[in-house]
């Protein structure tokens, strides 16, 4: 991947000038990334091991190394800090559990329908589904607040069916608790009343996402499904219609064809979408910042937001940085697992899928690209994957993956 054949065609004389130009050309980009990304991460790593309180520089001599104290406060020492972290993990965990499968299913559904539609209107539908991904999270949150307010459009629609909707974004009750309440279960059984991991009771862990968080889950699906639809569309086009057609000819119904032919052939794309979704949905921040972390009793707060709040509002910088680093390591591990998994599969790919994608020019290698690109700024990431899946840069896809 790193090597090109350029070495062989270069003469010795030109080479020195070329080396100089090479370094000159990469220097600005390298300096910016090193100074504003690599160095700051090291600085924050130091802060997470220190008792810096936000005054003066974190490098001034009065700041002490405190070892793992900040990490212990949020993970092992019982107390409010640990509980806050536990709740944030719980909130985000439910968010992931719902968002990742749902957005994948919706994106696949959209792609299959758009792909099936004949000549007319295809572009219109594609644009319609993709539009939410283009707009900023701030704007989308405002739209959702308007729609989901107590007297808003959503509750008006529910009203037609005789349902009185909740006050969505301010409702802190867990959806599973609400379901249980229908059956008269409103307090935890003995076994679940005890503390579970991170000082949060099992009853709370199992509450499900709060109604407010469910609204954010819908928001996430609304904004990311369009992007992932584009990835699936690229995958569907690489497969082509012939196989589908053949299955139909053999008498398989559309549903059977979809599950036994289309889905298995889309496996690489499916894997990419699932893992990108997994990585992205552990990074929810923007919507929570706009709504305010204390909304709905803090049930929409995620670790990413908690890290920000702990540092910038409570001025517990070390602890905030520690939360950020736990998240950092966790996401990096997910990313590496994905890259590793895709690398492993890569060599087998052409053999296994060779006949199926025989027509695909240049054998675009989706797994390879996504593996290199995964984890990029969500905005650029999806475009990269999407752009490659279509030819070169012929098409823009942009992600809104504002998980």
């Amino acid at each position, binding site marked *: 991947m790193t090597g090109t054949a350029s070495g062989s065609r270069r003469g010795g004389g030109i080479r020195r000038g070329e080396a100089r130009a090479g370094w000159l050309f990469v220097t600005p980009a390298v300096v910016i990334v090193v100074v504003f990304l690599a160095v700051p991460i090291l600085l924050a790593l130091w802060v997470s091991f220190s008792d810096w309180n936000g005054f003066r520089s974190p490098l001034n001599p009065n700041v002490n190394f405190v070892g793992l104290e900040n990490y212990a406060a949020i993970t092992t020492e019982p107390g409010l800090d640990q509980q806050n972290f536990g709740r944030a993990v719980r909130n985000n965990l439910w968010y992931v559990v719902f968002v990742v499968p749902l957005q994948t299913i919706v994106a696949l559904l959209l792609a299959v329908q758009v792909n099936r539609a004949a000549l007319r209107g295809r*572009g219109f539908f594609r644009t319609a589904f993709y539009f939410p991904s283009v707009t900023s999270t701030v704007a989308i949150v405002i739209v959702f*607040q308007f729609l989901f307010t107590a007297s808003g459009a959503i509750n008006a629609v529910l009203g037609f069916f005789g349902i009185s909707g909740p006050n969505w974004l301010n409702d802190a009750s867990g959806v599973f608790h609400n379901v249980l309440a229908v059956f008269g279960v409103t307090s935890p059984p003995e076994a679940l009343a005890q503390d579970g991991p991170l000082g949060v009771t099992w009853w709370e862990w199992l509450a499900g996402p709060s109604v407010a968080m469910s609204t954010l889950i819908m928001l996430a699906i609304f904004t990311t499904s369009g992007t992932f639809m584009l990835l699936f569309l690229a995958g569907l086009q690489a497969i082509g219609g012939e196989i589908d057609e053949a299955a139909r000819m053999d008498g398989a119904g559309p549903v059977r064809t979809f599950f036994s032919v289309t889905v298995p052939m889309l496996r690489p794309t499916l894997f990419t979408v699932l893992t990108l979704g997994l990585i992205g949905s552990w990074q929810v921040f923007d919507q929570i910042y706009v709504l305010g972390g204390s909304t709905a009793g803090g049930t929409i707060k995620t670790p990413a937001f908690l890290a920000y709040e702990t540092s910038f509002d409570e001025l517990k910088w070390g602890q905030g940085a520690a939360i950020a680093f736990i998240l950092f390591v966790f996401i990096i591990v997910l990313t590496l697992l994905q890259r590793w998994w895709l690398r492993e599969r890569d060599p087998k790919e052409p053999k296994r899928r060779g006949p199926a994608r025989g027509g695909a020019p240049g054998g675009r290698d989706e797994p390879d690209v996504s593996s290199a690109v995964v984890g990029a700024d969500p905005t650029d990431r999806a475009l990269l994957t999407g752009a490659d899946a279509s030819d070169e840069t012929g*098409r823009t896809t942009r992600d809104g993956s504002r998980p």
Partner: protein
Amino acid sequence: MSDLSTRSVVTEGAGASAARPARRRRGTPAKVRAGLWTSYLILIGLALIYIYPFILSVAGSFKTDADATQNGLSLMPETVTFAAYERLFSDSPFPLWFGNTLLVTVIVTIGRVFFDSLAGYALSRLQFRGRAFVFLFFIGVLAVPGVVLLIPRFLILQQLGLYDSYAGMIIPLLSTAAGVFIMKQFFDSIPVSIEEAARIDGAGQFRRFWSVVLPMARPALVTLIILSFQGSWNELQHFIVSRQSPELNTLTTGVASLVSGQLGSGNQFPLQLAAAVLMTIPVAVLFFIFQRRIMNTTAGAEKG
């Protein structure tokens, strides 16, 4: 709008669509056509779900506060009023936010296009010691999740004395690993022969890049421009941690403060909706304009 995008799709899916009518005639027409109709019905239903919220929001921005709160579902305002827009321009620093966003976005976009294509070109074409390492470095950086940069970015900007300044808001965004990666991939895909001609003419390294290579890279550059523009126009996190003065608010941070701040209290939906509409327009318009341009360049390339 829809017309533009229709054409873009036709270009992209031309192969697949062209083959389709023929196949349909061979198969079982009635059944397939029924399937197609079901498809259209599902699509129209889904499209309504995706578009309707935006239409309602635009309608809401022309309502009175009470009307918007009470009749969220109605498309027609009881009385059409521009009050929200007027208030946005007189009671809030919206124009200032707009200006700040525009300034930052333009500089960041130009910077990214320039620095990322320079680096991408060097990594693709120029032979120098450490090249493989630099490339691996960028690949590694791609894996860094953006959201964990909030605290680190703030720390470094403070340390360098750039906090709460335009420089601090702009410089860290001037280059991205993803942009470098896009450009490198693109240069890898175009033949070296054209450059070789320029080399024989004795053109210097930078001149060759600037006047021979860069013009060829137009499709990739357009992609990068759209990405950068959209990315920095919608950027929120970096502007939360790189500034605090109200005068440096961008659209994202400013409008976010509308939601949580004084003007967000009560049910001032029209004001917020108006802000959301106005901040969305530029990026949406640009998206559609560039989409067509991309299409044209792609079509041109295919012919040649």
